[in-house]
Structure formats: structure tokens, C-alpha cells
């Protein structure tokens, strides 16, 4: 990636649940990657298929030989939604916010969920180009998105 975009300002208010690795270690490399500002996706060493979320075997050829490869972090909006009704206490005063489902063309079009940074009332279109922004918290980093 040419320029790395990092923010320590949380898009959503403090008090939202933060991610933690699964106790069995399955997705530890993913969350270790985000901390190092690397967007890692599982790729099968046998057949080359990508997959996210991670699994113990490849869904295509059932090989257990999986690697983690880095995506450029550039993607396209596959779907989006503007949330108005808060269901978490931390969001009570937040007002609307935008969630995007981003497809990563350089990683087999796997998708990742994040927020689209900026004005929550902005006009969003499926197909819009976005790039990753690292939202650093004390011990974990979230994957956010901004328009290119």
C-alpha cells in the first residue's frame, strides 16, 4: 500500500464490544495482522482459493494447508446500510452510522464488514471504491473504510 491510513479516533463511541481472538487460535493471525496494519486473508496452499472468515480447512479442496496472505486493502462496496435505531447502549446518542460490506478483488472477492468513515448521511453507492483505514485501540485494531 502506498499510503497507510491510521486513526485513533473511534468511528463509533467507546463502549462498543471490541474483537478478541477465538480461544482455539483460528483467527489469531487475522487480529495480529490488523494490529500490524496488515489485512490478512486465508489462502489455500493447495488450490489457491481465498476464504474469510477463517476456517481450519479449505472450503474448495478441503486441504488443511492454509496460508495467510496480505490484501492491498483496496475494495469495492458490495452492500451497505445506514443504521438509525441504536440497539447497543453505547450508540444511544450516536445518531445514524454507515456500515459497508466491502469486497476485496485482490483476495478472491472475500468480503469484510466495516464502517464507512465520514459523514453518516453521505450518499453511498454499491460499487464505490474504498480503502482500508486502521482504527487503533489499546490492544486491538479495527478495519475501517474510506472512499478513494
Amino acid at each position, binding site marked *: 500500500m502506498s499510503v497507510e491510513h491510521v486513526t485513533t479516533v473511534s468511528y*463509533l463511541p467507546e463502549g462498543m464490544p471490541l474483537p*478478541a481472538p477465538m480461544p482455539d487460535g483460528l483467527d489469531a493471525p487475522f487480529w495480529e495482522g490488523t494490529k500490524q496494519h496488515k489485512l490478512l486473508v486465508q489462502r489455500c496452499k493447495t488450490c489457491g482459493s481465498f476464504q474469510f*472468515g477463517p476456517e481450519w480447512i479449505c472450503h474448495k479442496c478441503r486441504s488443511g494447508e492454509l496460508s495467510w496472505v496480505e490484501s492491498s486493502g483496496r475494495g469495492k462496496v458490495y*452492500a451497505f*446500510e*445506514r443504521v*438509525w435505531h441504536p440497539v447497543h447502549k453505547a450508540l444511544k446518542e450516536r445518531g445514524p452510522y454507515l456500515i459497508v460490506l466491502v469486497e476485496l478483488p485482490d483476495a478472491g472477492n472475500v468480503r469484510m464488514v466495516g464502517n464507512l468513515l465520514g459523514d453518516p448521511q453521505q450518499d453511498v453507492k454499491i460499487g464505490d471504491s474504498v480503502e482500508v483505514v486502521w482504527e487503533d485501540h489499546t490492544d486491538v485494531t*479495527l478495519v475501517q473504510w474510506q472512499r478513494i
Partner: protein
Amino acid sequence: MTDYTIKDKVAIVGIGETRYYKAGQSPVSEFQLALEAIQKAVADAGLQVEDIDGFASYSDDRNDPVRLAAALGVPQIQFSNMHWGGGGGGVAGAVGNAAAAVVAGYAKHVVAFRALAQGQFGRFGQGHAGARVRGPMAYSMPYGLMSPAQMFAMRTQRFMYEHNISQEALCGIALASYKHAQQNPRAIMYGRPLTRESYYNSRWIVEPFHLFDCCLENDGAAAVILTTTERARDLKQKPVYLMAAAQGSGYRQWTAAHNDPDYATSNFKTLAPRLFGMAGITPKDVDVAQVYENFTGGVLMSLVEHGLCSAEEAEAFCTNGNLEWPNGGLPLNTSGGNLAEAYMHGLELVLEGVRQMRGTSTCQVKDAQVCLVAAGPMVAPVSDLLLRN
């Protein structure tokens, strides 16, 4: 091959439901509601409680069949079964499992039931309260994607984009449910009609869902009793026969972080052909449909995926009163369903299907012979029934 299906071998012979309450307003416990609905279904069938020997439910119903059987004094349990999966995906699945048990001879009179008083436990629509989240939800919850409405709005948005469908289609589905509820004194929304204007003026929950695109939350219970076609003939009610039942899920549906290869789907694509194939009919033969509405967007997709209309026709199909009794082409959710009758987690849709086939609905479709009950949309697994009179 017909020998290996349940077609025409099982009938629903009794239905029962409690009064439906606004969420949190049941004067009695959830377990008492379950007991009441089951006893009413038994009485409706003209059976005795002692005849019940099997129980089936779904979505982790809290009312354990062993406790139910003990409380009811049922002489023996011969079958007990829980359909896996959350949401309403198991409504028809529980009925289908009960039917399978009857056909297999495991049990003679199986009750499929659902009881809900969420206020006595925890609500479905509320977000995770913990500070840390692990597993698949860790990829979405920290971004404020945590409630059912938020999970399903994303799919709906994509479906509407792919097929160029406007908000009007969702509005049409909500209007039909509310219109039907005005005929139904059991309905929570009886006496509370909905207009197109009030639909559009209602607040957004999550785009594209307005308030009226979302199911209710209620307290109550409902139950149906199944037995063999032979036994059904001697009972009190006109039997309502199962032409087909199907449950399941498509390729890698509900893969973590919304990675289902086929994303903008209600997940009925693999079920519908099996369902109609088992019944030996086509979607054109469906006279009336009860389609589970967690949210109107799922109904829209379900109608398309059951072949009741094409995606291109879907907007026209859902608007201009086409889903409304008595003049619409396909009256939908004729009791008011989850949107306007009561949220009995969709089991009320099975009861309404039975009423339509008996000829006793408050929005009775004239000469109706076949009713589709589709349950789940956008969850996994989902389930279906085809009923006939």
C-alpha cells in the same frame, strides 16, 4: 419415489393459541402459555392430552418437552425434537419433523409448538452487552452490525440493487399484513390500520427498513397437532394435509462476515424445487401464502425464490393490492402475520394456513385449496410447508 416422502400421509388436526399480548404484558409465565396453547390444540382436535406422545419445536424454545410432559401428565414421550438454527427458520421445520415422526411410526400424535415471553428472559433485538466479542461476530459487531434488522437490511439492500426494486415493494407487503389484521380480532394491530403515508413517515430502523417493515415482539404461544391421515379422518376437524415439507440451506449460506457466495437471497433456492417436486404441483397452484416476515425484505425475496413471481415482476407483484384479500392475485399473510397479528415466531402463520384450508380464516380466500407456508427468510436453515384441504 413418492413412497419416500410424507406427501398426503400426515394431517394437521388441531390448532391452539393463547391470547396474544404486547411484549412483556403476559400475565402468566411463558411455560404456562405453552401449556395453554397445547391444551387448546388438543381440544380443537377432539383428542385427550393423554393422546399426545411427541413434541417438536425450534429456535431453542425454552419449554423443555420433558417438563411439558410432566406438567401435562402425558403418559409417555415417544418423540422429542428441536430444529437447529435461530430466527423463524424452524417454523415449518418443526412441523415437518413432527410429520416425519408420525410417518415413521415413532409417535402417533405430535405437537409442534412455540411459546414466547421474551420480557421474562432476553429480547432478540438487543445488542451484545459484553466488552469483548469472539468468533464470527467479532467481524461485524464492533462496527455496530449486531441486530437481526441490521443483518438482514444489508442483504435486502443488495437484492433491491441487483433487481432494481424500490421501497414500494416493501411498503406493499407491510400494507397487506396490516389490512388483513383489521379483519382479525386476535391481532395485536386489530383496529390500528396502516396507510401508505404513515408507512413512509415512520422512522427508519435501518435503511431500507422503516419501523413497519419489522416484525412485532409479543408474548403468547401457539401449537399444532399432527397425526396420520388415517387417524385424522376420525377426528373432530376437517384434516389439513401436508403435501410437502422441506428444510435446509444453500451452498455456504451464513458463512462468517456475510461471505455467502450467493448473498442477496432468502435461502429458499434449494428448498423450493424440492418442495414443489414433493407435492407434485407448481407455484401457480398456490392459492394463498403465509410467508414469515422478520422483515419485509425477506418476504420479497421469498416470493421470488418460491417462483410466485420473477425478480423482474416482484415490485408489481407486491404493490397495487396484489397481496391483499379479497381481490389480490395472491393474498399474503392473511391473519396479519408477524407484522400485524402477533409475533409467535411464525408459528401463527401455520395456524393461519390451517384456517385457510379449513375455510375459517377471517380473510378467507374463496375456494382456496393450497397454502404455502415459508419460514425463515435470510437465515439458515429455512423451512417450508405446502398444505391442502
